[in-house]
């Protein structure tokens, strides 16, 4: 669709950019899909604790060893444990999520609105969707980063004035990282902070339905 335009960032590069946002020592929950990739790009010495809402704090990367059905993350993927890891039940897990003990959640998105509403659990025309932990994470995490493609496969904007898809939570998104841009949600609306190499703010805005305020110091995404 961008046959004439510069390339967009790969999913791995988007994940790498998101990883830069995670403060050392923070507790982070990575949603299924693209956000899962973020785990591979965290600096190993940053002391970040990954929480899986099925009941693990402190898991590491994916495990390549023999599959253990009792050692999985919330996406059902086999994981390794880091020193200091702990297990707990679902009520304790969601006390962490809903009680404000998760510093950053990274979730995938279908649409984000100009005021930071998120829709990420249902595509009505495809007949269904699932909530899982998304509504709790969007509501309870101290900071919410949405990692998604800037447009749909057919080229429609995912950053919109008002979400058409069913909402996950209202006014919950703090930062949007896409394959074209880094967009911050502020009280006044959306600020375009960074753009993919080779892209212009105008070209990104043309693929964004919601109005974007271009930051005075807008720059290329650096990885």
């Amino acid at each position, binding site marked *: 669709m961008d046959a004439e335009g510069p390339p967009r960032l790969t999913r791995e590069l988007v994940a790498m950019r998101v990883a830069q946002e995670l403060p050392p020592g923070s507790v982070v929950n990575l949603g299924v899909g693209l956000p899962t990739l973020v785990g591979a790009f965290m600096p190993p010495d940053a002391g970040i604790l990954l929480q899986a809402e*099925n*009941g693990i704090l402190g898991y590491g990367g994916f495990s390549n060893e023999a599959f253990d059905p009792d050692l999985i993350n919330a996406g059902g993927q086999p994981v390794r444990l880091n020193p200091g890891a702990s297990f707990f*039940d*679902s*009520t304790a897990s969601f006390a962490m999520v*809903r009680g404000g003990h998760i510093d950053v959640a990274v979730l995938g998105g279908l649409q984000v609105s100009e005021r930071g509403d998120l829709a990420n659990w249902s595509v009505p025309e495809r007949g*269904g969707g699932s909530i899982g932990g998304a509504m709790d994470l969007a509501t309870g995490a101290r900071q919410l980063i949405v990692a998604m493609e800037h447009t749909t496969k057919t080229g429609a904007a995912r950053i919109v004035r008002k979400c058409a898809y069913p909402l996950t939570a*209202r006014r919950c998104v703090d930062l949007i990282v896409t394959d074209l841009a880094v967009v911050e949600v502020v009280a006044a609306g959306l600020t375009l902070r960074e753009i993919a190499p080779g892209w212009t703010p105008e070209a990104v805005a043309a693929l964004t339905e919601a109005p974007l305020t271009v930051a005075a110091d807008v720059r290329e995404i650096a990885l």
Partner: protein
Amino acid sequence: MTATVYRTPDEALDGIVDGARVMVGGFVSAGTPSNLILALKRRGTRDITLIANNIGFGDKLDELCEGRQVTRAIATFAVRASSARESHFEAQYRRGEVELELVPQGTFAERIRAGGAGIGGFLTRTGAGTQVAAGKETVTWAGEEWLLERPLRADVALLKAHRADRLGNLSYRLAGQNFNPVMATAADLVIAEVEEIVETGAIAPEAVDTPAVYIDRLVRCDPLEVRWDGR
């Protein structure tokens, strides 16, 4: 009040009737009572209201759905937005043959906790302003909108733990806890599948995750092999 030990998962399900509300512990492959689920399938119990976190392609709970034994599900993850590799449950849901109440996972856990702890409801911000709020009372407090959520209980809970002692104390392995400890508190009849049953006292008191008071029936089963399908 010692738990009754059954020889087979099929016998452990004695008395479960058509129309039962059945809670099932587990999270995808972890802590899932696969032997009890397959025994419930063999039993042929119908018109089940299934209360479980997830029903997905390849899950034992989806095998239970294969024979249309489930007419209603309360779950957090049961229908994916994509239709690749459709599960039995998804196909039945899209044809309007099963009813689904989709619940946010934290609300699901807390409703069960309330059901098991004699709590009549609770307030949460999760779901406010979304489809989940439909038909629910809302309360404005501390400048925010909260949903009033009601407790969830079942007739029967099927659980998986790693070890039990003969009294019914349970301990779990790795991330096998998930919904099992809370579901143990919220059903009239609680049946646990375990890999090992040891003498009472052989599990150190501080290593007991679920105290025996909640457990009615035990059955020792070898875990069924689960392969990761790369999702």
